[in-house]
Each structure stands twice: as structure tokens, then as C-alpha cells.
């Protein structure tokens, strides 16, 4: 192997390991941020709940996780999701019965000052809100099945 070739391989290896190091840093940061996000979402959902358990990740464009909320009256399942349009964005929280029926809808925060304060009206001002709610209800029902 020529000297030049060896030098190039070493350069590539050094660049590759630097990239690997950056990827590792990103992975560590994402774990920290995810754990903080879970804590924040639990706080947001646990307004009247005794304890909240995260039930793992969900493959959906609008929400990441389903939470099991243990109350003395029975279990319910919560989801925190975001909606966005070209004029506004908002974060919603929703709790569902184990069968997937909507129990409570909450407007957790918004980036537009002119969104209606009523959570249902605020959600209706975004396109595709019904589809998101029905996907969240399905995810809650699936989580309830897996939980029982």
C-alpha cells in the first residue's frame, strides 16, 4: 500500500470517528431532552391523575407517546400532540377511556394570540384535527389493550 493511500485511509478514519462522536453526542442529548419532554407532558396531563406511566413510543407524525393515567375511578390514557398551520401552532393534551372515547381535551399552549380559548374550537381551527384525534383514540385503545 502506497504512503498516499495510507494517508487517505487515515484521514477518512479520522473524519469518520469525528462524525461518530458527533452522532454519539446527539444521541445522548436526545435521551436527556426526551426524558425532560416526558416529565413535562406528564405534568401537563396529570392535572387530576394519581399517577402517570409512559407506555412507550408511537409512530405518528403528531404525537410521540401514550400515557396510562391511574386514577381511583379507573384508568384513562393520555396523549400530547401538536397542530400547526401557516398562521398558528398549538400543543394539545387529550385523555381517552380504555375504549378510545375522548374524556378531556386541553389546550396546553399556543403560538398564536388569536386562537379560540376553548380547546375544541382551537383544535377545530386546524385542518386534519379530527384525523389526529381519531388516531390518538386508536393509539389509546391499543395501549389499553396492551396494558390489560
Amino acid at each position, binding site marked *: 500500500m502506497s504512503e498516499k493511500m495510507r494517508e487517505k485511509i487515515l*484521514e477518512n478514519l479520522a*473524519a469518520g470517528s*469525528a*462524525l461518530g462522536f*458527533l452522532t454519539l*453526542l*446527539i444521541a445522548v*442529548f*436526545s435521551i*436527556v*431532552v426526551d426524558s*425532560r*419532554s416526558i416529565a*413535562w407532558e406528564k405534568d*401537563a396531563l396529570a392535572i387530576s391523575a394519581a399517577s402517570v406511566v409512559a407506555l412507550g413510543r408511537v409512530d405518528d407524525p403528531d404525537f410521540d407517546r401514550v400515557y396510562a393515567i391511574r386514577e381511583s375511578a379507573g384508568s384513562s390514557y393520555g396523549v400530547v400532540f*401538536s397542530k*400547526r398551520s*401557516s*398562521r*398558528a*401552532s*398549538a*400543543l394539545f393534551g387529550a385523555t381517552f377511556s380504555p375504549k378510545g372515547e375522548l374524556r378531556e381535551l386541553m389546550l*396546553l*399552549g*399556543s*403560538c*398564536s*394570540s*388569536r386562537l379560540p380559548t376553548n380547546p375544541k374550537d382551537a383544535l377545530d381551527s386546524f385542518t386534519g384535527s379530527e384525523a389526529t384525534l381519531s388516531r390518538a383514540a386508536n393509539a389509546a385503545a391499543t395501549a389499553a389493550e396492551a396494558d390489560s
Partner: protein
Amino acid sequence: MSDSQESFVPNPVLSGLVGICPLIAAANSLAEGVMYGLGTALCALAIGASVPLLKDRLPDRLRAPATLCLSAFFALCYAFALRLYSPTIAAGLWIYIPLLAVSSLSLLVLRRTSSKGRFGTDGRSRLVDIAVEALLFLLTATVVGGLRELIGLGTLSIPTQGPSPARFFFTEWAPLRILVSPAGGFIFLGFLVAVYRTIIRATRRRRT
């Protein structure tokens, strides 16, 4: 070229129309404008500080991909920090946060820095020029976001930590709602560019 013209750093948005698409799409309120501008400014400064350090250690063929990787890394770090600071603003900026990597790299002085020496022809550190340009980007994003929200919705939102930005209401209704949409944003930016260029032309004419 005279010294005064050499040391002049033009506004990257209003003069060079750099990164206007993500800026207009993302900055439809003061809070989002500030956070988007801050992200671009911080990424540009971080790249501007790290690229000259890497320049001596990296071969030419790896310089461009390394700069792009670094830029994406800084943009991701900012996205994480923003998610922790305000999940709602992070959700509002959405897909435009990764575009910080491109917006910051598009800054003119930064592009020149990665191709030439660490210092400019006038002897000043290029990092100072990048800082000025980044600050101008932040200022423009703040003005664009703030004025669009103020004229469009009659409110101003301050990026505070927590689920929702702090808000001030100036009118009961939204005076010119179209300004908050991307189409209105481009119309508004067009007016702002016209005003900026008129001022620059008048200043140059007065100097000559």
C-alpha cells in the same frame, strides 16, 4: 474600494435575500422570529468559530462535508435546547429548525470565511464580521416577526420559558390577518427591502 465600503457588512436578509423562505414561513410572531433569528445567529457564530480551527487539520476534500455536518450538529443542539425552553415555540418552528443549518451557512461572510483566510483583507477577524451579520439576521427576524404580529394580529408575544409565550394585546381584533400568512409575509418583506435599499442608497449618495 474605500475603507468605509470594505468594512460595511450588508444586512444578509434585506440586502442579500439570504434564508428568506424559512424566515418568512417561521417568523409569523415576535416569539418565533426571535427564536429563529437567535438559532441562525448562534449556529453561524459556532460554525464561524469552529471552521477556522478545523481548516488546518482537515484536507480540502473533507472541508465542505465537515462544515455541513457541524452546521447540522449545531442546529440539532439548538433544536433540543428550544424544546426544553418552550415546547410550543419548538412545535411552531417545526420543520424550519433543521433549516437553521442551511440559513446559517448561507451567510455571506461565513461562506467567504470557509474559502479564504481567517482574517479579511482589512485585517479584521472574520469572526467579528460573522457576528455583525448574525446580529443583523437576528435583528431582521425580530423586526419581521414582531411587525407581522403587531400589524397582523394586534398583539406581541415575548418568548418566555414554558408552554406559552407571554402576550400583550393591543387591539380587540386582528387588524390585517393576511400579514401572518406566508403570502403576507413576503409582501411585508418586499416593503422592508424597498425601505432598506432606499436608506442605503441615500446614505451612499450623501457620502459621495
